[in-house]
């Protein structure tokens, strides 16, 4: 087990991403953050806070649960269904620049499901992807626009993201 990002590095990484977002998107008025449950949601809120600290703008933030859009949902005949939680997007996404936020980018299947889920709420002008960690091993043609840290891993390893809001501490570690 090794620590890939500690609390301090994680905080600075998110601030850096917030700056990158502002650099690439001129008009902040049309920006909105949507976090993928579970850990994308606190990350989206932190980015909103970081952007607010930089230029004083309030970016609307939503939460997306992608469980019902997963492509492996009905393929496992055994075992209980995954728990679904609420999707909360309290604003119109039409013509917005949506920043989709997740903790780890791996096969790309979660993002595929999230895109399906998101476009049912409207037609954003553009969707960009923000991830804290990109660990490689894509199975779909998906690429992140903003990456906190590229983390080369083997498929037998597992990347675990811990966030204060969910787990009581900020840390990314590689297990196995």
């Amino acid at each position: 087990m090794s620590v890939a990002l500690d609390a301090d590095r994680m905080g600075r990484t998110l601030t850096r991403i917030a700056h990158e977002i502002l650099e690439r998107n001129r008009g902040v008025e049309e920006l909105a953050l949507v976090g993928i449950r579970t850990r994308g949601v606190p990350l989206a809120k932190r980015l909103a806070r970081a952007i607010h600290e930089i230029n004083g703008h309030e970016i609307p933030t939503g939460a997306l649960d992608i469980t019902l859009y997963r492509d492996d949902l009905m393929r496992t005949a055994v075992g209980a269904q995954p728990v679904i939680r609420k999707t909360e997007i309290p604003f119109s996404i039409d013509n917005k620049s949506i920043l989709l936020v997740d903790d780890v980018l791996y096969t790309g299947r979660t993002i595929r499901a999230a895109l399906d889920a998101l476009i049912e709420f409207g037609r954003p002008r553009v969707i960009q992807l923000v991830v804290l960690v990109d660990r490689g091993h894509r199975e779909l043609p998906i690429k992140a626009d903003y990456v906190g840290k590229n983390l080369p891993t083997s498929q037998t390893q597992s990347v675990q993201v811990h966030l204060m809001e969910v787990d009581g501490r900020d840390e990314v570690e590689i297990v196995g």
Partner: protein
Amino acid sequence: MKKDLLGIGDLTPDEIYRILDTTEAMREIGQRPIKKVPTLRGKTIVNMFYEPSTRTRTSFEIAEKRLSADTLSIAASTSSAQKGETLADTALNIEAMAPDMIVLRHASSGAGHLLSRLCKSRIINAGDGMHEHPTQALLDAFTIREHKKRLEGLKVTIVGDLLHSRVLRSNVLLLTTLGAEVWVCGPATLLPPGIERLGVHVSTDIDEAVADADVIMMLRIQQERMHGAFFPSTREYFNTFGMTRARLKHAKPDVIIMHPGPMNRGVEIASDVADGPYSVILEQVANGVAVRMAVLYLLAGGAEGD
């Protein structure tokens, strides 16, 4: 969860809470511009309704469509039951066309259990005779929990035709399992023998039963199942057991009034109560769709030990 949902008796408290929590998430889908998710794409669901039903059948059909299942509904009046085919034979024929789930409403208690033994499809009981109506009890519990934020410790009073009511049985099983204090009230002729063994308080005095109630659930007088004189007249029934504004005063100030429908206005409930500020009757109907989506989703995933 087990393969089928035949009654509340088959569910553990954890499974009940799981269904209620899933319902919370499902309800949000009904508020979207596009009220549909692809979850049950490619699944076939057959709704077999051997008894008249508006609410339950519409509710199941909408729930199935919101989850993208392929659905069809059979009403007894237009099926080969009219030609004398038995339920078992009809079920085996439908089973031969390989549906994934069957939703059954039937006048005989235990009809769902019969199908469960015959069919590999998952069976959901949408009301079997005088036995159980599990999804109704689940949507009632969801509605209560939403208003009261809890179920345990609440005084829930159920008034009406207790003898013929599958809604009563499912609700008593669910509410007592989750720790509510359940009172049942109705004319002595409509009290099922041995009902006190289900852990409920029994009363034939409506004022006693309603006193300090958090929730009052009115049950329909089921004329179609009454083959005997259970009370002198519907007017006398209303005078003795009907829910009126005057009677409501004995309940808690934030009491909610429920009714599984269809209502007999002026028989078990006065119109000004049914349409009044305490009534959550239409909320129950709205929540019904989300509860059924939750049940369909959780059953579709595969039973433990399957």
